[in-house]
């Protein structure tokens, strides 16, 4: 018996080792790709394979980031854009969920609204930018509105669909207990669609960034989107690229935070 159990645990060790090895290979390649990209960019820029005035270089971008961070100006822009994005994201998602609930509460109302939702969903929301600015002013309110608007309709449609896909037998059980429609919603429909709601959060993070950056393009005096446009106008592409790098980093962080939240919420609910 003894030698056999030893082989079992040896096999397990082997399996764990292989798993670790696979992980290491993947991380190595990921790092290699990053280094190759940055390195190639730097070399191409220095050897004038690409125009350094247009495409800058990693060393230039780092320089710009460091100096702008040091005097605190970059931090201000980051704060503003982050605030606008998070606000737009939360408002868009919440309003979308509320709209979906209203649609669910009356099937006649949802049928009446159907063509309008289709049109609003198909329309590129950023085209409404100028109207928003006229209506809400040139401050951060219109930028937040843009960040919310871009995700609200798609959230409504996705969540409303999720509401309708809940097994009708759950409602049947509740109705046999005499539950009102609101009680059915509270006890069955809403908790059953919580996973769907959280997965729309992940989509909405990306959408809100689009809305906010476009909004800043149009009107802002501050923010990362403003820095991109400003850098473009004064032909400082190192500034444009460093803003882009920051947007990429913060968008990725926000996505990861939402993903963590998803893991925690879904585990606590099941």
């Amino acid at each position, binding site marked *: 018996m003894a030698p056999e159990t030893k082989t079992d645990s040896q096999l397990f060790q082997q399996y764990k080792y292989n798993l670790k090895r696979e992980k290491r290979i993947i991380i190595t390649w990921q790092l290699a790709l990053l280094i190759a990209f940055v390195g190639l960019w730097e070399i191409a820029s220095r050897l004038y394979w690409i125009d350094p005035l247009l495409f800058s270089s990693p060393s230039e971008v780092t320089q710009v980031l460091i100096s702008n961070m040091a005097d605190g100006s970059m931090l201000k822009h980051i704060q503003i854009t982050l605030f606008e994005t998070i606000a737009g994201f939360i408002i868009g998602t919440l309003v979308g969920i509320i709209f979906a609930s209203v649609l669910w509460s009356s099937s006649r109302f949802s049928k009446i609204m159907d063509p309008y939702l289709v049109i609003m969903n198909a329309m590129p929301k950023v085209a409404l930018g100028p109207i928003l600015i006229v209506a809400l002013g040139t401050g951060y309110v219109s930028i937040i509105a843009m960040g919310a608007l871009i995700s609200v309709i798609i959230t409504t449609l996705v969540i409303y669909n999720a509401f309708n896909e809940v097994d009708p*037998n759950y409602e049947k059980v509740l109705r046999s207990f005499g539950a009102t429609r609101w009680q059915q919603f509270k006890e069955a429909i809403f908790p059953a669609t919580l996973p769907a709601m959280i997965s729309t959060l992940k989509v909405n993070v990306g959408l809100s960034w689009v809305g906010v950056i476009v909004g800043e393009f149009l009107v802002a005096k501050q923010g990362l989107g403003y820095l991109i446009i400003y850098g473009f106008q004064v032909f400082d592409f190192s500034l444009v690229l460093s803003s882009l790098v920051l947007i990429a980093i913060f968008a990725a962080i926000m996505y990861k935070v939402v993903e963590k939240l998803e893991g925690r919420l879904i585990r606590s609910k099941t």
Partner: protein
Amino acid sequence: MSFLTIDHVTHHYFLANSYKKALKDISLSIKQGEFVALLGPSGCGKSTLLSIIAGIVKHTSGEVLLENKPIKPTDKTIGYMLQQDYLFPWKTIMENVMIGPKIHKSNDPAILTKAETLLNQVGLTGISEAYPESLSGGMRQRVALVRTLLNNPKILLLDEPFSALDYQTKLKLEDLVSTTLKAFNKTAILVTHDIGEAIAMADRIFVMEANPGMISKVFEVPIELRQEAPFSVRKHPKYQVLFDKVWEELEDKEGKTEE
């Protein structure tokens, strides 16, 4: 005296381009404490009839009376058990069982004790804080039974509640449900397509035919069989006799509809 009366109930399903008569002129009456089975092929409208009794589906014409009064779904008179348990996966077993009192906003502290007693009675001890996913199919269906009974319904509607279970579990649960309902003197209607189950559990069997759904024949289950628990009924000599008669009736109707 009749407890539940179904009087000339007819029901249509309307579609955009056609309609179907799901039930035609159903009349039956059930005594208090009686256990009846509705047996028939799929599409004979037996589940529809249950939904009509529960007040979830509104029938086209006719009357359904419980103690000479129409049934409203907001009364706590109906207990419904479905093919599957439909326990809410995000609620604990106790929260699932307590859903009825929660909906009726009942603050009676005795109800919690009653829930615990009922759970113990069906052999589920120490699982009230567990979630449904950690329970087997048979255990989950027992929780669903407790959830239904806790509401103290006057009549229980069982819509093939054993059909999704494996055979052994099904037989054990039949015994449990049957003895529990007898103990509480509950009136029950069981919908099934399993002849054996109908004979084993019911006092009377209504055989239904499809297109349109009608009651084709009523069988009285012999008194000797009614007194036994479902598991022992299947071993009784009279069981096979009745089984063959019901089988013949169903075959007969099936032949007629295929012509």
